[in-house]
């Protein structure tokens, strides 16, 4: 009997490991949603009356067992309004209904109490009108939701402010999208051709390629970055500059990190994903289809290109989606090949030739790293990093879910073909 009970104990232990994984996964996503949306929710403006008689107005942005951290008005520059207020110095805390929050055009936040009259509107340094004037504490729940939605919209659709500590992430979003699109254009033909080669042929060449692809899947991403920097940027890029852009030297054109080199590096990084997925798709096509095509007089190549590849199109798509998801999350190699904190210009614009492959670019993943670690203002930086993280994870998860759905549908289709 005890033996049986010990068996159950073991079963519950391994089942508990699965529970722990699920709990961690759910916890991670709950944390991301909570912390990612928090920066957009209108926080209450609090008034602290201190024991020494002074009055502070601002948002409580943190604290511990001994003190509060208050963001008071940032009158001279962004990030200059934080105060650490010891808890025992606070006589009273209140949320006055007439408190007004001003978010200036340069990202600074100021607070005032209107006291019945129309509040004076402070102007930014360059005289631009404030971005937001809100009587936060007096807002109803629906008005709060409206502010929340408007702030999210502005986050997605405007450029950054204050050295990427405030404002939107539009350039980073565009940089990420353009980068993975360019990478897809590069990786698809090579990945599909390699998969066709592996599927169609036999012999030592196939073994070599297969070993190489398997090995490649185990190479750390940062090593691809080293290759990208050393070979693409310093090697090929510098050579291109000497040949075609000599008039601008020593300023690099292609000899510095840029979009093209980053896309090439990511294409190498994601190649194994595409090859494995396409090859799996080709292998799943029933042999009878192929035999039928050959029996009707099609050549091998015609069979491959007109029959097998169209039939494996969902597999190609799956591989590509997985590759894009992997590339969107790869940050370490980008740090070596051209991602920057603030890019002066977008890699795509209305000026000929529209796509500028030599330009440096911004990236959502790098913005996360930069805002959280490399910024001088973590009280602004960490919430911003979480907002970017939620956006990035949202993109990646949607891509992965669609890949999983595609794959399932593909399997069902083949099963139907076989019966």
């Amino acid at each position, binding site marked *: 009997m005890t033996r049986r009970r010990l068996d159950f104990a073991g079963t519950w232990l391994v089942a508990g490991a*699965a529970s722990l994984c*699920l709990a961690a996964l759910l916890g991670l996503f709950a944390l991301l949603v909570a912390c990612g949306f928090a920066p957009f929710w209108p926080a209450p403006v609090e008034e602290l009356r201190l024991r020494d008689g002074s009055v502070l107005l601002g948002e409580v942005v943190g604290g511990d067992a001994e003190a509060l951290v208050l963001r008071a008005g940032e009158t001279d520059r962004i990030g200059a309004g934080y105060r650490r207020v010891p808890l025992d110095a606070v006589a009273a805390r209140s949320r006055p209904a007439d408190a007004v929050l001003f978010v200036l055009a340069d990202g600074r936040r100021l607070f005032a109490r209107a006291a019945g009259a129309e509040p004076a509107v402070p102007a930014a340094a360059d005289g631009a009108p404030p971005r937001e004037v809100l009587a936060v504490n007096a807002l109803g729940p629906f008005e709060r939701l409206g502010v929340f939605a408007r702030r999210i919209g502005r986050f997605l659709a405007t450029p950054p402010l204050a050295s990427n500590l405030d404002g939107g992430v539009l350039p980073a979003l565009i940089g990420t999208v353009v980068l993975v699109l360019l990478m897809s254009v590069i990786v698809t033909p090579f990945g599909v051709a*390699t998969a066709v080669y592996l599927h169609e042929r036999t012999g030592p060449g196939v073994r070599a390629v297969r070993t190489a692809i398997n090995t490649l899947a185990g190479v*750390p991403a940062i090593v691809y970055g080293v290759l990208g920097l050393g070979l693409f940027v310093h090697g090929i890029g510098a050579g291109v500059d000497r040949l075609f852009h000599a008039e601008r030297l020593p300023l690099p054109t292609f000899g510095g990190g840029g979009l093209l080199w980053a896309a090439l590096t990511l294409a190498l990084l994601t190649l194994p994903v595409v090859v494995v997925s396409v090859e799996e798709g080709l292998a799943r096509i029933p042999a009878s289809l192929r035999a039928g095509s050959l029996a009707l007089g099609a050549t091998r190549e015609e069979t491959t290109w007109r029959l097998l590849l169209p039939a494996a199109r969902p597999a190609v798509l799956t591989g590509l989606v997985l590759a894009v998801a992997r590339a969107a999350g790869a*940050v370490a190699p980008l740090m070596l090949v051209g991602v920057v904190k603030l890019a002066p210009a977008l890699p795509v614009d209305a000026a000929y030739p529209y796509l500028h492959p030599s330009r440096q670019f911004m990236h959502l993943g790098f913005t996360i790293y930069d805002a959280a670690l490399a910024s001088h203002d973590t009280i602004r930086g960490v919430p911003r990093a979480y907002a970017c993280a939620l956006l990035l994870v949202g993109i990646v998860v949607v891509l992965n879910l669609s890949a999983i759905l595609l794959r399932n549908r593909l399997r069902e289709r083949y099963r139907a073909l076989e019966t």
Partner: protein
Amino acid sequence: MPGNPVTYEPQLSGGLASALRVRRRRGRAMAWLVGAATASVLTALLAIPLFLLASLLPWQGLPAQAWAHLGVLLEGTLRAGLYAVLVAVPLGIATAMFTAHFCAAPLRAWIKPALEILDAVPTVVLGLVAFATVAPWLKAHVATLLALIVAIPAVLLAAGFLFGARVRAEGWLPLWLLPLVVATIAVAAAVAAGRHDAAIVPASPWNALLVGLALGFAAVPLVFSVAEDALFLVPREQTQAAFALGATRWQALVSVLLPAAGSGLVAAALLGASRCLGETMIVLMASGNTPLGGLAPLEGLRSLGAELALGLPDAEPGGAAYRTLLLAALALLVLTVLLSSLAGAVRERLRRRLHAEAAPT
């Protein structure tokens, strides 16, 4: 290019014959294109080690302090990898054991994609969570974490010992145990809340323990999927034979499944270790990047990957610092590729053996 085994050359009139010639020529061109594309892929792949070697040769030597620094970086990488493996391997393999052997099919169809999604979460996001949310908590609660590491398995074992016989639906256990696990964590967190564990105070809030947790968590899906594949490949007949001889599910797992798929589990651990050693962003964000050697779990560290990400953009090509970094990249490449190739070989052998056993004789 092997043709069809029987080549039938029809006697065709002029137009048709030339059309066939064009089609065959087009086919040869396509085959050539495919070969060329594959060859370029192969070249690009070979370029990684060749480039690193070519930039380091002819060997110009490195100053002694560069070697010492490389040694510290290697120690840091191995330390981070060690703690991460200690998290990822038990968790990943235990989850795989459950999913492959006990799990109800509908639940399995959910757990596998869920872990695939976890695998897809960018590591920079996990690094952020470790840096900004876990580190401030862990700084004050190392002892609580250690207590949890003991308490969770103990609670599970005790609950299974006491109530195991009453639960019929073994395949759905993780869902039943989810509240238990969460409650254990919540109780521990509530007891610890607002208190500083004076017993163990880390030297730095960003330390090897934190890196191990985050990195290990990131590697769980990989370890899980490889181990699950291996366990699932074992032919059903073998476990069914054990059942027929009166074994319980757990006995079948321990006495049949684990010995049969053991090398697959080793491969999973090796691949997990390779991933942990090569991962950069989590270590970069959660380790504090202080170059300290040794095995101390509560001190910061600096890994090869983090050094590359931080140092290489500013290093002058050809200089001593640049060459030191390229050597670091080469060391990282050799280390990870060795581990993952070893794992690949082990997996391949296991697959062939299991296929041979499964084949009807």
